């Protein structure tokens, strides 16, 4: 199985990279862009068959290491 973990700054935490991206895009003529947020994606290869328990374990991983919940939120998707 594969777990796709998406991590981004929480709403309300200033994201200067996202802001720079949005500004560059509007400079390039993509004026419909009003905001951008930058995050990261971590792909994990996981042993086992049980998607539900895998998801629970990956959530634990996020809490313990992958995300800093002071500033970041995360979401987990399991693919078989």
């Amino acid at each position, binding site marked *: 199985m594969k777990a796709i973990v998406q991590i981004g*700054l929480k709403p309300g*935490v*200033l994201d*200067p*990279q996202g802001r*720079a991206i949005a500004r560059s895009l509007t400079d390039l003529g993509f004026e419909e862009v009003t905001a951008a947020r930058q995050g990261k994606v971590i792909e994990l290869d996981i042993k086992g068959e049980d998607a539900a328990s895998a998801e629970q374990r990956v959530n634990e991983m996020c809490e*313990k*290491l*992958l995300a*800093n919940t*002071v*500033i970041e939120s995360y979401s987990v998707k399991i693919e078989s």
Partner: protein
Amino acid sequence: MKTAVITFPASNCDRDARMALEKVTGRPAQMIWHRESEIPSDVDFVVIPGGFSYGDYLRCGAMAARSPIVKDLVEKANKGLPVAGFCNGFQILTETGLLPGALLMNQGLNFVCKPQKLRITNTNTRYTSGYGSTQEVVYPIAHHEGNYYADDATLNKLEKNGRVLFKYVDNPNGSARDIAGICNEAGNVFGMMPHPERAVDPLHGGTDGLNFFKSIIESI
């Protein structure tokens, strides 16, 4: 008086920290490798140095904060052992939860290295008592993720309790309320992005950092 410096893979200010501690205590500092499981019980003061522990991959300080030696460090710090983290060391301390908040990427998006003027906002602490009436000091800064963030409630609490020890004059990185250095509630754990350990030598960065080390050493 026994001091120690914890080193992680790709710590790189460990020598700077060791030199500063030796200069102030007159005794060599013990270097503790991250794989060791315990801080020796006779150590009186621990520095977590700057650098790029574990390449700063994932998040600055994230992996170092979960290494075996830091587990023991957190326990001892909670029992009162003085611990100071500079730069990457500050990031590690926030990742462990010993200090509140987190360090985001600099608002200007670039790494920034320069002599930085700081205002001492509380001289009545174990880390700043030696500065007396001194208002401003210059320590070098050198970081990419030094933009201090905490929610308003935390910031209010820090300021109200005198736990903000240093503020930036001309904020170089976007830190909330110009905060440069903070301590924990008990006052034994301190972290800041600037480098007092690089300001102990007239030929290199000035000597404004000497009183920082003298303060904490004398308080022990």
